[in-house]
């Protein structure tokens, strides 16, 4: 016959409320609480003072988009294929393509993006546009400070996306 002696778990309980044991427990727990809060004073705050200090972002952080040019020729990488707009789940990218001509060459391909707009007030920063792009013309940057005074100002045009973005967000160093 099997016995269950080994399965018995001794439960150690503190004194029940009431009586001398309860008073002792309440007193002890109060002191423990006071010790805890005092230790927090000594530890100091963990607050990051945001506008002055910023939490560094990881390299793969998906912030505001950037459009790129070829470094050697200065031509735009975007050929106006609209794959990013097709991939966009929030439908916030608008691309209008136009033909390159030999005397008016803007991108490396046959066509270029005459209009390239991203509505940042709708963008969900999923990064699908970056994945969809066959020429790595659009990537996600590190800037997350995108607030503005009017919705109109949140529609980023091609010039704004091509421009060298302000580096206002620190990048997390290796191993940080």
């Amino acid at each position, binding site marked *: 016959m099997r016995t269950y002696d080994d399965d018995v778990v001794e439960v150690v309980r503190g004194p029940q409320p009431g009586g001398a044991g309860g008073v002792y427990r309440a007193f002890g727990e109060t002191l423990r609480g*006071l010790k805890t809060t005092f230790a927090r004073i000594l*530890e100091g705050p963990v607050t990051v003072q945001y506008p002055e200090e910023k939490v560094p972002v990881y390299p793969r952080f998906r912030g505001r988009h950037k459009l790129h040019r070829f470094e050697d020729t200065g031509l735009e990488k975007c050929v106006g294929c609209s794959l990013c707009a097709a991939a966009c789940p929030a439908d916030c990218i608008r691309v209008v393509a136009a033909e390159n001509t030999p005397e008016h060459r803007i991108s490396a391909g046959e066509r270029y993006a005459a209009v390239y707009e991203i509505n940042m007030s709708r963008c969900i920063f999923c990064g699908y546009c970056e994945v969809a792009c066959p020429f790595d013309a659009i990537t996600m940057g590190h800037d997350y400070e995108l607030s503005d005074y009017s919705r109109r100002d949140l529609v980023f045009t091609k010039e704004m996306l091509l421009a060298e973005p302000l580096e206002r967000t620190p990048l997390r160093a290796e191993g940080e």
Partner: protein
Amino acid sequence: MTPFAALDYYEPWWAQLAKSLVIFAVVLQMVPIVLMMERKLLGRMQARYGPNRVGPFGMVQPVADILKLLAKERSRPESSVGPLYALAPAISILTAVAALAIIPFGNVVDVFGTDVGLYGIDVEIGILYLFAFGAIAFYGLVLGGWASGSKYSFLGAMRAAAQLISYEVAMGLSLLGVIFTAGTLSLVEIVEAQRGMWYCVPQFAGFAIFVIAGFAETNRTPFDLPEADAELVQGYMTEYGASRFALYYFAEYMNMIVISAIAATLFLGGWLLPFGLDPPAWVHPFVVLAKIFGFLFLFIWVRGTLPRLRYDQLMSFGWKVLLPLATLNALVTAILVVTT
């Protein structure tokens, strides 16, 4: 017999005026400091900074708060009882400030060739004076809560009434031990009687009971049921705004300072220092202020630590634990004083 016959020394009128102004000014300036200290310390206890935007280290924050409150429009609910509604905060602040008058910051010293006591007035019934004003203070809360014509205010006022009555008994009894031992009610003489041994040592039970009851009397956590921001939206001061709210707020912190000052005077030897240190008389007020701030730190520390009691816990703790303990303490002290 003149009203000032209780003074056992002569003070010219200008000394009386000057010292009351100085005490008033200094202690009222402590309120913003305590406000700031509380918010900063609570912040640190919660691993954050607390206010740090207005002025250097946020030190001007209380000034900004007070100015904001004073600049706001005064309004009152239609259901409120006008005169009482306006009167109640005034009662609160009046009693809190009046209790200050008897807090001794030092003994009689020589100022410009005249003997001046470093306190508002040394009344022979010192502690009774305190309790008298403590009893009036509770009208401020109850009238304010009732006259607001709001159910939250009324509930808060009822709680305040029950709580203050319950804990005032224990508080009074806890001080009996000190009075028996010192054999006087005058706060100055009680401090002088503590030379050599502060009363927090022989009267440790009375001291603990006094501090706990003091938390309850000032409506501080864990006994802040009259305000109970979570359930009663600030209780008796729900309907108050602008400068009247500022008065209530001010009175709350003044009460904290007064209770701290009384505890420092009755149990921690007032202006006396331990280990036979005997500084010159001008240091005495600073010793008292340091002790007051020590108590204020305790108030804030406890607020940052303990949750609010339930109403039945509050009542049973007051009547079943504190009151018997305080009675026992007074009884044992009385027997010891008589037999030795």
